[in-house]
């Protein structure tokens, strides 16, 4: 057992550092380090730079354009990116639908969809949740009824992140008879967002963000050729997708960077002649989250090591979702504490580059409450933390 990087890995680390120094556009870097939401075109710009280098898809097999990196290389990559200020990828295409396509899709589907995902030419969103199918996803009611060589899709998807920017949506739909056991009647469809009959309506979330939407399907015609794999197998494919994308789910590297920032902001924040890190109550809270994060990093590394020796990640990776979101939300909250009275102002968009008003407060800390409030979603989305606990209790503890 050891945790040292090999000489080759150290060389790789230097390569990554050099690449980031040379290629990451300074404006994207600055926004990322300040935790200012990036515009779509910035994600696209960065993804194309990664594509040029051959580093667009960290988790894909080499044959489809992936890096083929080891888990240690992925770990180095994630940490260097977070440290330097490279943005996280938008996961819906690269990390969510692509593994389903290259694992279960036809050759034609692979050729048609994967290259555009790799280059960020086509943006994807995820059509899973419905107004009455949230935690109980298998009770979804959007129907796809066969009509010649197409399906007619009807229903409503909700919490659809970035649907307002997406070109395509991957959906779980109900294809079988209603009496068939819930999961066995679900199919996986790829749907062009430009199809007639699709409307997207925005949902405003806490902190007045527009990230999620409702997507309505009214007799939308979807070619049968856009179905992944077999009819009725969609649930199986989706589950594989959910367990496949575990690396990075805990966002440990980003949390480490945020913790480092938090400490330096706390040190700069005066408190009656001392600074906040001199306040033992506050310092203890920071230490507690730091310790939790150290443990989480090793939990993540253990999971990665298990994957690299051929063990598919099991339900235990739900731990990563639970603890990762808890640490992120705790950091959000400590930022609010640092802000003090400046946690109160709500000056929308004051940190965006095109903001032309007068800034309020002592810098970025002023936006910490909206961020804290907005990020309450983290323990709800992607399978709420309660659902993750159900998974652990059923599949790990056997309860």
């Amino acid at each position, binding site marked *: 057992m050891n945790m040292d990087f090999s000489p080759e890995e150290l060389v790789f680390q230097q390569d990554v550092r050099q690449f980031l120094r040379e290629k990451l556009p300074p404006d994207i870097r600055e926004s990322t380090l300040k935790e200012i939401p990036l515009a779509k075109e910035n994600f696209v710009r960065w993804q194309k730079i990664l594509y040029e280098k051959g580093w667009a898809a960290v988790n894909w097999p080499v044959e489809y354009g992936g890096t083929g990196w080891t888990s240690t290389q992925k770990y180095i990559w994630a940490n260097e990116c977070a440290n330097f200020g490279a943005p996280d990828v938008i996961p819906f295409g690269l990390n969510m639908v692509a593994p389903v396509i290259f694992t279960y899709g036809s050759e034609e589907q692979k050729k048609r969809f994967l290259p555009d995902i790799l280059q960020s030419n086509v943006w994807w969103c995820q059509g899973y949740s419905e107004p009455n199918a949230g935690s109980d996803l298998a009770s979804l009611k959007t129907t796809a009824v066969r009509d010649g060589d197409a399906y007619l899709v009807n229903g409503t998807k909700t919490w659809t992140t970035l649907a307002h920017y997406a070109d395509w949506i991957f959906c779980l739909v109900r294809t079988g008879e209603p009496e068939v056991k819930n999961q066995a009647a679900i199919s996986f469809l790829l749907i062009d967002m430009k199809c007639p009959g699709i409307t997207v309506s925005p949902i405003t979330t*806490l902190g007045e963000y527009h990230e999620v939407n409702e997507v309505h399907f009214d007799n939308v015609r979807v070619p049968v050729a856009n179905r992944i794999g077999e009819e009725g197998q969609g649930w199986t494919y989706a589950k594989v997708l959910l367990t496949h994308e575990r690396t990075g789910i805990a966002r440990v590297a980003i949390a480490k960077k945020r913790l480092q920032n938090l400490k330096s902001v706390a040190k700069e924040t005066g408190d009656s002649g001392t600074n906040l890190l001199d306040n033992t*109550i506050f310092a203890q809270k920071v230490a507690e989250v730091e310790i939790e994060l150290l443990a989480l990093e090793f939990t993540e590394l253990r999971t990665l090591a298990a994957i690299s020796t051929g063990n598919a990640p099991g339900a235990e990776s739900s731990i990563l979702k639970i603890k990762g979101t808890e640490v992120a939300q705790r950091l959000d909250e400590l930022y609010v504490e640092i802000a003090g*009275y400046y946690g109160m102002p709500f000056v929308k968009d004051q940190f965006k580059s095109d903001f032309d008003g007068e800034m309020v407060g002592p810098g970025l800390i002023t936006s910490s409450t909206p961020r804290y409030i907005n990020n309450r979603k983290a323990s709800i989305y992607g399978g709420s933390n309660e659902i993750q606990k159900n998974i652990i209790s059923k599949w790990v503890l056997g309860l």
Partner: protein
Amino acid sequence: MDFSYSEEQQMLQSSVSKFVQQDYDFHRRCKLVSSDTGFSLENWRLFAELGWLMVPFNEQDGGLGGSAVDLMVLMEEFGRGLVVEPFLATAVLSGGLIADSASEAQKRELLGLLMEGQLQLAFAFAESQSRYNLADITTNAKKEGDAYILNGHKAVVLNAEAADKLLVTVRTSGVQYDREGVTLLMVDADSEGVSRQCYRTVDGHRAAEVKFKNVKVPEANRIGVEGTALPAIEKSIDRATLALCAEAVGAMEKIYKKTVEYTKTREQFGVAIGKFQALQHRMVDMFTEYEQARSILLMAVLQWDSNKGAAPKAVSAAKSRIGKAARLIGQEAIQIHGGIGVTEELDVSHFFKRLTTIQYLFGSTDFHTLRFAEH
């Protein structure tokens, strides 16, 4: 020992409660929050007509007695409705300071107008570096003849936008953290040299950064004795803290109940989610936190009334304990609601925002825990 409300208190409660239920539904509040003024002047006139603006004041000052229990009754109902009218800033914080420290002539000039709903006030005490230390003041005033020349910057001044007059804490002698040398000046908000950068707060209220550049303030507008204003300032913040705690208790009651109701109707896996024991116990925790919060609030208001406002330890106990409850109840209400809980369209999410800012206003939970320990 008797924890029941007097007949007058019951009447006050039912009149505020009726207003909140009938005239202050969530959609109306949303409209007020996004309106130009940020609250309703019509509501403010109604508050005056119904005598609510007299609640914080003594009978000698023309008020209804000024008991903390009365104030609690009113603020709790405001908390249930997330009322954004600047009652706390004008009547409690600023009004309380004037009642405690101003001369009889100043009181005659100001309190009548305030209670009639004709005067809006703001109390400018925080500075960008001060955090919760009320003596950390760099805004300064130098005497020139029969006036003070005021310079400085006050941070996050609640209701500064609507205020006709600003009560400003200034340093007239000593250095940054000295308890001595703090003076209270009343400044017309439209005086030359006063600039206000106004904004909405996260919880739908209004505040501003207020800058003073060589603002001339007549000596007659000083409230109280020069250099010794700090105890009165602390008392005013304590009173406002109690009022805020009562608002929090009202808001917490509202959302723990809403959460319970939601889980009775929201079905997943074929049953109402309230049937899941994992959620039941968490809602029991919310309820228990609410009960503990209500208890410590009662303890503090009764101490305040029996000690004539000299109850810093009790106030800090309340703020600390209620901050802890507000955190748990707010976060759990959102989590148990799930996706719908993080939308702007749901009222619960707005209660969560207010319960978040309340945890930090007038001193964070940790600040008051320490203050309790030090007293």
